[in-house]
């Protein structure tokens, strides 16, 4: 059971309150009609699949209902941090330093 900190509710709660929502920080193209097929493939289908820290979205589905971002290590499943949507990517180096 993962314990996840909701950055809005400021509480650490069990996984079953949350739903996973895929890779974070994917930016919708500003001019969709000008995208090439390769750019569409990248936007729609190609995802980072790292063995290690992963930037991802979660939703506090059975709580405040809001989306937020997280950095989680996909080997240990430990969360390095969670932070509100629409805020910049946290610096990975400092997070890993904190965890150690």
């Amino acid at each position: 059971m993962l314990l996840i900190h909701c950055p809005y509710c400021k509480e650490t709660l069990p996984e079953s309150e949350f739903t996973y929502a895929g890779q974070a920080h994917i930016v919708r193209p500003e001019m969709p009609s000008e995208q090439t097929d390769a750019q569409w493939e990248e936007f729609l289908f190609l995802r980072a699949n790292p063995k290690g820290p992963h930037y991802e979205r979660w939703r506090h589905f059975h709580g405040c209902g809001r989306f937020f971002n997280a950095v989680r290590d996909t080997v240990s499943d430990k969360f390095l941090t969670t932070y509100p949507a629409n805020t910049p990517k946290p610096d990975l180096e400092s997070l890993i330093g904190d965890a150690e």
Partner: protein
Amino acid sequence: MTRFNALNLVKHALTGHKNWTEQWPEAEPKKEYDVVIVGAGGHGLGAAHYLAKEHGITNVAVIDKGWLGGGNTGRNTTIIRSNYLYDESARLYDHAVDLWEGLSQDLNYNVMYSRRGVLMLAHNVHDVQSFQRHVHANRLNGVDNRWLTPQECKEYCPPLSISPNARYPVMGGALQERAGTARHDAVAWGYARSAAQRGVDIIQNCPVTAIRRGANGAVEGVETAKGFIKAKKVAVSAAGHTSVVMDTAGVRLPLESYPLQALVSEPVKPIFPCVVMSNAVHAYISQSDKGELVIGSGTDQYTSYSQRGGLPLIEHTVAAIVEIFPIFNRMRMLRKWGGIVDVTPDRSAIISKTPVDGLYVNCGWGTGGFKATPGAAHTFAWTIAKNEPHPINAPFTMERFRTGRLIDEAAAAAVAH
């Protein structure tokens, strides 16, 4: 290697079974191979077997970071079926079932393929309509699948509860009788033994750390824990770790790796004659020859390489099983484990050449790779040997995510694959 037959069995019985030869030798890597296969699961070892047997390519190494068959081949719930909706999938999975039927004879190794039937339960009107569409589509493709009434479901699988008062009543089921199970370890061992017999080196406990490319971009070989191994062709069949391996060659694939869990109960006397799947309640169950109930459902919701998965999913799975089979509500579960599966956006596999010369990939099997083992291995070997796809795997390219020609089994509403 001694052939398994009645005469040899009698001969070795007389000497106390002390003189059986090893099934495959412990191999040290040579400097150079025609083909290096990354990943010694059923798919990789199978590809080596078919390369040697059907294409005469025997200067082959199969390299694995762990032990042979220790990944998803040894972690799945051993279900075999081919009742997929789309033409491309039906051809590929039915090709696999055709090969399953003769596999024990082909390998001289008993893979215990058992045609015990797979019954997929319908619990609501949508299920009934969707499964009947599957039945008709399958019959047009020559894949056996037929519709059963709730009473016929009960006759086929007596432990099933068809009470109309159930929370999820059984409204019928789609039955594929040619479907069933096989002994998963034996599949890896049988392919390994057969490939080794034909000269293939099987190198275990040797992680491939990178794929090396030359100045012209083509593949040169693989970097491993035991040094660099030169190879004319490199074929990656690494399941959940495909992204990690292919990244080192600069090839990105539309894959995400998720934990898929399974569990087994304490062993009991034979009670469960077939495989039952319920997509709506979301679990599947069969009984192994040892007597354990083998149970699984979907992946965990988050990506991971942990090979564990979380307990909430186990709770959900067991709840679903007890819902459909109240008879099992006091069974004790013995073990649970996880494997890492690589999932594509359309839930169909990729068996394909890549933009890199001499580099091939067989991946994206998601939660349903075991059933396809012989078919995937057979068409992958063809693709490697001839540098072009077999007609059966030609639609399963990695380019389909650019062209839009998806094989969208995800949209075909098969929750469990």
